[in-house]
């Protein structure tokens, strides 16, 4: 069953069509990677899903029929859609624990919050840093903290924008493991990434975007063999 359906979505900035009638369906339980050259519309897609950018036309529908294009950022997040941003977006003046408590979201039952924070600390391996200010963390730790903040809300759709950008090989491997543990039968995960080895390790299927449209959809092995994909993206 589809957890997230993007239906002929168009986003226009002035004369530039960032997304041009894009359609995409991510199943519950699936990890989908979206790849493509710079300017293909990957981050614009996430901006449209999270309500930061208003699409010109088209719909973005959750599994239960909620049309996200009709709601603001906060309401979309409360509906269970959470995003890890490309630039690590944690709150520097708050501790790791406090960041995670905000990550739980406004709808979190007070009794459940302590458990969720403990679980997120354990999954991200940040237990020893719980009392540290987020601004004092290393780049990789910030990335994991942000993934922990996503986790703490128990979302049904997770959007990850370049989760391993700027990370070392060891940190990348650690992040791939972390994403594997995020996978749940009732959860859809959408990853944007340039690191093809990483994509191959975490994703079930890939969608290749080119100039705001879907160029290819399928397994990573098939994508590597596809002539159009090689021409616009992989071959360069």
């Amino acid at each position: 069953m589809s957890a997230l359906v993007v239906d002929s979505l168009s986003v226009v900035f002035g004369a530039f069509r960032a997304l041009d009638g894009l359609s995409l369906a991510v199943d519950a339980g699936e990890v989908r990677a979206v790849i493509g050259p710079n300017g293909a519309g990957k981050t614009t897609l996430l901006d449209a899903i999270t309500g930061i950018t208003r699409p010109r036309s088209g719909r973005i529908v959750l599994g239960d029929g909620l049309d996200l294009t009709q709601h603001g950022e906060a309401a979309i997040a409360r509906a269970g859609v959470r995003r890890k941003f490309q630039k690590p977006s944690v709150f520097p003046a708050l501790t790791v624990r406090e960041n995670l408590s905000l990550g739980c979201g406004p709808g979190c039952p007070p009794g459940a919050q302590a458990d969720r924070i403990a679980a997120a600390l354990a999954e991200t391996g940040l237990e020893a840093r719980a009392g540290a200010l987020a601004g004092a963390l290393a780049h990789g730790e910030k990335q994991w903290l942000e993934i922990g903040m996503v986790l703490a809300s128990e979302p049904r759709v997770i959007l990850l924008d370049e989760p391993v950008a700027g990370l070392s090989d060891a940190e990348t491997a650690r992040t791939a493991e972390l994403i594997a543990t995020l996978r749940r039968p009732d959860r859809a995960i959408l990853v944007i990434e340039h690191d093809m080895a990483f994509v191959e390790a975490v994703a079930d299927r890939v969608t290749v975007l080119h100039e705001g449209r879907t160029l290819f959809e399928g397994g990573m092995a098939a994508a590597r063999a596809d002539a159009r994909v090689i021409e616009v993206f992989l071959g360069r």
Partner: protein
Amino acid sequence: MSGAVDLSPRVPAVRRIGPALGSDPLLASLVVLVLAAALGLVLLQPAPYLVNMVGQLAAFAILAVSLDLVWGYLGILSLGHGLFFAIGGYVCAMHLLAHAYAVTGTAPDLMQFMGWKSLPAYWTGLTSAPYALVLALGLAAAVAFVFGLASFRSRVNGVYFSIISQALVYVAMLLMFRNDTGLGGNNGMTGFSVLFGWPMGSPGVVTGLAVAALLTLAGVLVGAKVLVASPIGRRMLACRDDEARLRTLGYSTTRLKLGIWCLSAVIAALAGLLYVPQVGIINPRVLSPDLSIEIAVWVAIGGMGRLGGAVIGAVAVNALKFWLSAAMPEAWPFILSGLVLAVVLGLPNGLLDLAALRLRPASLKPTSLKPTWLRRGGGLR
């Protein structure tokens, strides 16, 4: 912001006072000092002019705390907070005049000046102090709500918000300069002779007003500290540092900002309410943009984002002003500007940086390498 502070939102506010003050020794000692000053005024009965000055400083400190709540903790720089201060002050002045008129039978100057036989209809009921209090605070909250809702909903932020807030206070000043508003025009309102039936200038009333201002300051400090140490306080800091990010975590930042903005306006009105009977006059000068900018200067000099800093800044600058504007009035603007430059260049977190130098010498090296925003929210841990 120690990790030990209870994160659960269901702890009653009263039980949060102890931990909140315990996490901020500077603020706790300030509260004790303020309460001791109130006791000292009652027991020692110093000269009335000194008592009056302490009372005025307390009112300014309350005003500075109100601005620090929105600027230091929420990142909203208001350059128009004089508006809310003036709302409190004007309504208080209206009450004092209406009350004096009822008690003494002498028509206020503004009635004689305008040739009116009675006060305008909107003065009705202002002989009642409780009604005046509710009106002052309610009006400040209502004006703040309308202005805040329009701005925050349209996502007017940063310098644009500051400029609009400044324009708002300027418009209010132009309005109050008009004589036909029935609020004294450019002469303002003065000649308050009676307070709760007591003669205005008597030592008892002077002490009573100063003590009321000090106790209110202590209460506002404790309340504000409990607020910023609570889960809402963490949302405020998060909103200050990255509002868009907080929104994508499911929080309505408009509601958060609007709530704190209105609370700040109410506290500022409270300060105006306590200030006017102590100086004995209000006129449209309190609405001049430079006074509103000066409030921000107090907070910046003391140290923003730390409630104690706002109090220290307001008291230090105004005490200096009381002294210097009498000793060498023409030099005061230059001294104030010099202070601002010195703080901006040498002490980016205000005078509290000096305290940090002295209290935590060991922590200097690592923290001084971090950018200002890292240290700003942290306080003196």
